[in-house]
Each structure stands twice: as structure tokens, then as C-alpha cells.
């Protein structure tokens, strides 16, 4: 499974939180909430500015398997995926929205990103943290369309010159077959 680090956390052993830990947790949470607000407020260019140049933005496909095959539940990097992007392609996705011809976003989707269960999984390097969060993303479109996507993200957040950037975002959906005609939004 992908969630090895998360699963290894034993909640019955109380963790010793320092004030620095609490401040870091708070800072990362606030970053994720503010980032989600940019998406819901349709400030896509501002959001794009939060992506690191070496961004890896990836959403694998999931399969419905027997417990013995659980390790193959998600496709692996390099295999079939729903998103398999770098920063250049994310730039194209953002530009696409402003061309005046992006039919799947004209009229625009109305999204609500609910980000929760934020956990700092790892301190990768001096300025990089691996952070997991759960999400429910709700979308209403046109007069009657509605979509809900649930899952979790594993981000690598990097502090550069005092600001946070998203260096990696792996998005794991709980759905196997998506009940939505497109994924024209960001997670």
C-alpha cells in the first residue's frame, strides 16, 4: 500500500508535541486551506504560482481487487493514470481555461475543496515536508450537474525564500470508475 508511513503511526502512543511542531503543523494546514481557497475562488494563475518548477502532479487509477491483490490497487508511476503531469503541462491546463474555448469549464464549475486530516508524515530535507491530507471535492456544474470526489493527497511541500511551494502532489481517489464526465478541475 501507498500509505505505509501513515499506517505505521500508532495513535495509542502519545506523541510529544513541541511548540515548533505545533507551529509547523498549523503553518502547513493554513497553507493547504489557503491553496484550496484559490482553487474554489477560481484564482488559477495565483494557484499555478504555488507549483514548483520540478512539480510532479499525479493521479493513478484504482482497481477493485481481492485482499490478496491489494498491493496492485493503484497503478504505478509510469503506468496508466488520470493525471501524469509536470509543471509545463499544468501551465497548459491553466492557460486552456483562459482561451475562451474551454468548453468543459464554460460556464465554470463551482467547486468546494474540503481538506482535512492533515498530517506531517516526514521531514524529507531541511525545507521539505511530506504532508498527507484527505479531501472531498464537490463540484456543481451547469444547472443540475453534481460530482463528488473523495480521497487523499500526499504532497511534498517545500519552503523557498520563506514561501511554500508544492513540489509533488500525488492524488489517490477512492473511486474506481469515475461518475463524472470529465476532470476539468484541479485537486
Amino acid at each position, binding site marked *: 500500500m501507498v500509505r505505509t508511513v501513515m499506517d505505521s503511526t500508532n495513535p495509542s502512543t502519545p506523541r510529544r508535541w513541541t511548540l515548533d511542531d505545533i507551529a509547523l503543523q498549523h503553518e502547513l494546514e493554513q497553507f493547504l486551506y489557503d491553496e484550496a481557497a484559490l482553487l474554489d475562488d477560481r484564482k488559477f494563475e495565483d494557484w499555478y504560482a504555488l507549483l514548483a518548477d520540478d512539480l510532479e502532479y499525479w493521479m493513478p487509477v484504482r482497481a477493485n481487487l481481492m485482499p490478496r491483490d491489494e498491493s496492485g490497487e493503484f497503478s504505478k508511476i509510469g503506468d496508466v493514470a*488520470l493525471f501524469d503531469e509536470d509543471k509545463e503541462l499544468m501551465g497548459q491546463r491553466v492557460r486552456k481555461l483562459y482561451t475562451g474555448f474551454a468548453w468543459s469549464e464554460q460556464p465554470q464549475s463551482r467547486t468546494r475543496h474540503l481538506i482535512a486530516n492533515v498530517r506531517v508524515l516526514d521531514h524529507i530535507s531541511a525545507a521539505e515536508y511530506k504532508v498527507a491530507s484527505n479531501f472531498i471535492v464537490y463540484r456543481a456544474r451547469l444547472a443540475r450537474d453534481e460530482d463528488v470526489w473523495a480521497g487523499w493527497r500526499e504532497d511534498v511541500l517545500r519552503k523557498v525564500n520563506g514561501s511554500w511551494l508544492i513540489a509533488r502532489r500525488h492524488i489517490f481517489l477512492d473511486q474506481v470508475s469515475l461518475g463524472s464526465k*470529465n*476532470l476539468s478541475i484541479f485537486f
Partner: protein
Amino acid sequence: MPLDTLMPDMSRLVDFKRGLVNRRIFSDEQIYRMEIERIFRRCWIYLAHESQIPNPGDFVSVEIAADSILVCRTNDGEIKAFINSCRHRGNKVCRADRGNAKGFVCSYHGWSYNVDGRLVNIPGAKELYHDQIDQPNWGLPELARLDSYKGLIFGTFDAEAPSLEDYLGDVRWGLDLLLDQGDLVAAPGTVRWTMDCNWKFAADNAIGDSYHGAFTHRSAALAGHRSGTGTATKKNLNPADREGFTAIVEYGHGYNAEFYDESAVDWSSPLAAWRRDPAIQSKLGPVRSKVLRANFNIFPNLFVNSGSRDLMVRNPLGPTKIEIWKTTLVDRNAPPDVQRMQVRASNRHFGPGGMFEQDDGENWVQSTDATRGAATQDYDLNYQMGLGRAVPVDSNEGPLRFNGTVNEHGQRWLYRCWAEYMEASDWVEMKKNHSRPSEHI
């Protein structure tokens, strides 16, 4: 009352001579039920790729409309397909998408079947049923026929269907554009998503709608996205200037193929290497080796793209709903980084988040929605592009095809054949009465 007596005259709904199609065929419940009987229970339907079940006991679970189908590799190495439903209370005997199994046990009362579909155990067979169940007759129902073409497994519920070879017929000449590109296997992972559209709008796009790209996908092109092949340069040709051909094939298939312009292919990309491989070139011959990409609809519901090496089944889940199952093929012998590059090009282009495909769904749902209104239904859809102007390619090579890629020959052919399937009461009648491509001109 038999279904037929309630049915409207198909030839009045599809007027291929004038290029008119009645909107009712895209959302009418009765017509949909008849399509299931006369098309989806009759035609050869693509199920899976052989490489997805290489070993004995391997299985994948797929669907033909609402029928759940297990495709298995038996212990003898043979491929079998059967209905995934216990003969006792009907539960699925396998509820996973894929895996390897010694057999399948129903979760309700424990009836169990082996991987070739035979019923091998009934709990209490002796004490409760007094050995009176004739077990060989209560196995999982096998599809009437199963066969493969170059790794693509097809099945049909109808024993009277022509052989797969005859059913695909001349479309194999086209399909080889993809299937002769290398030793192709399915990359791990299936993309599945649903959309509220009629399956025929997706088929009508697949069979050769080279018209929509410039407008539907304009935002992707303006944003700098190029193609699903991963080999296109920035040069973007106006669709009307793209040379190529349109083919229509017996039993409802069709495709169009666009030739490449030397300057529009990035020859430094390893994904273009196969185009310079003499062995592949000689297999394809002078015409097909010039093709950049071809889009196919294998009747009724398999979309094939030879450029991005994608297979997409559009399985109907009701008159106004489909589920798409997308598989990407890669060359088994290509280095892993080249395979990755190729799969990535497809991931970015097609699928619900694909730079191109995200806008297709929006359109097909809108087209479908506009077939429900009672007053709106009075206004037929226009399929008149190129009507009466099909010019056969003057060539000794390959089957009949027409010049150009931007036309609606394929769509008129699709609905003409669709109406013939719907009118024919069985394969005997269909084999006798169906139109031949040469009659289409």
C-alpha cells in the same frame, strides 16, 4: 406485446440518403432495449487484451451492457468468457476487476465454479439436493463464441454470428496500422468513467469525426498541447488541409486516417522510431506507412486510436449513459522509459482529465440531452457533409476508401448499418440484407 410491434420504422428514423437522423434514437427507451437485443447480443464485442490474462487462472471482469462477463485463462491456457452470475440466486461469483483464481465461489450459498466455468461444488449436493442437480448443465453460461484478432479478444452471445475474421473483414487492414506497430501489450491500469450520453454519439465521433477537433479541442491546441502520439511538432495543420482517407467497412465499422507531413513529426522522439523501422514499414506498405494516426469505430462500441495506441470501449448502461473503459497498448520490446513516454502522452491527451477528451464528454452529454425534448425531436440532426461526394481513392492497394478525412461518410454509414441491424430479425437476415461499402457512394 412483442417489442417489434411497438417499434417505429428504422428507415424513417435514419435517412442516410438525405443525411438525416431522428433524435429519438439517442434517448428512446424502447429503441435502447431493441439495441441490446439486436446489436449488443448479436455483434462481436471487444472484451479484453490477451496480455491482461497471461497465466492460467488469470481473469478480468468486464461488461457488455448490463451483463457482467468474466474472461479467464483456463488451466489449459485457453481463453474462455462466461456470464458472471451464479446459477442459484444470480450473485456475481467474482466481484474483483481482475486477479488470479483457482475458481470462483458465490458469496451467498457457496456454489463454486472453476476457471473454465464448470460448476464444481454445491454445498449439500448430496444431503440437501439428493444428488439430483445435473451439475454439468449448471455451469456459468459461456458466450456463444470467442476469438481474438492480434491480441484483441472479442466475444458474441450469438452462435449465428459470422466468424470474427468475417465480421471484422476489411477493417483488419486498417487495424493493422496499430496492431503491426510492434509486439503490443496492455499497459497496467484501466481508466473507467461514466458520462450521461448515448453510446452512438461516442461511436459517431470515433468513426471519423475529423471535423470537431479544430473547434472542440481548440482550447487545448491554443494552450500549447499537441497530440496523444507524443511525436507532433508545433506545426498544426488546418483539418481541411490534412490529407488522408476515410474508410467504411461491411457490418458497420469505419475509420479515417490522416497522413503525416514530414515537418509535423518530431523525428528525434523515440516514439517516432517505429515509423522508420523497415520491417514495420514493409508490413504496412506504402499507403499505411504514411499514416500519422487513424481513428476507428469497430461496430458497435470500440474506439481505437492508432496514434496514441488506445482502445476504448464505450459500454452502454442505459439509453443516455455509457461507461468508458480505456486501455493503452505499449510495445513489449520498447525500453521502459520509452513505454513510459508513450503511456504518458496518452494519459495527458485522453481520459476524463485528458487535455483533449475532457471537452468531448461535455459535447456528447449536450448532444444527448437535446434528444429528449418532445418538440425538439421534430428536428432531425444534420449528417450531410460530403453527401454524394464520396470519391474512391484510386489505388490498387487495400480495400475501398474515400479521399479526405473531413466528411460524414463514416457517420452516415454507421447509422445506415445500425438501422439494418435493428431491422434484421437475426443474423441469417442480416447476412443476407446488409449493405456493402461499394453501395454507399
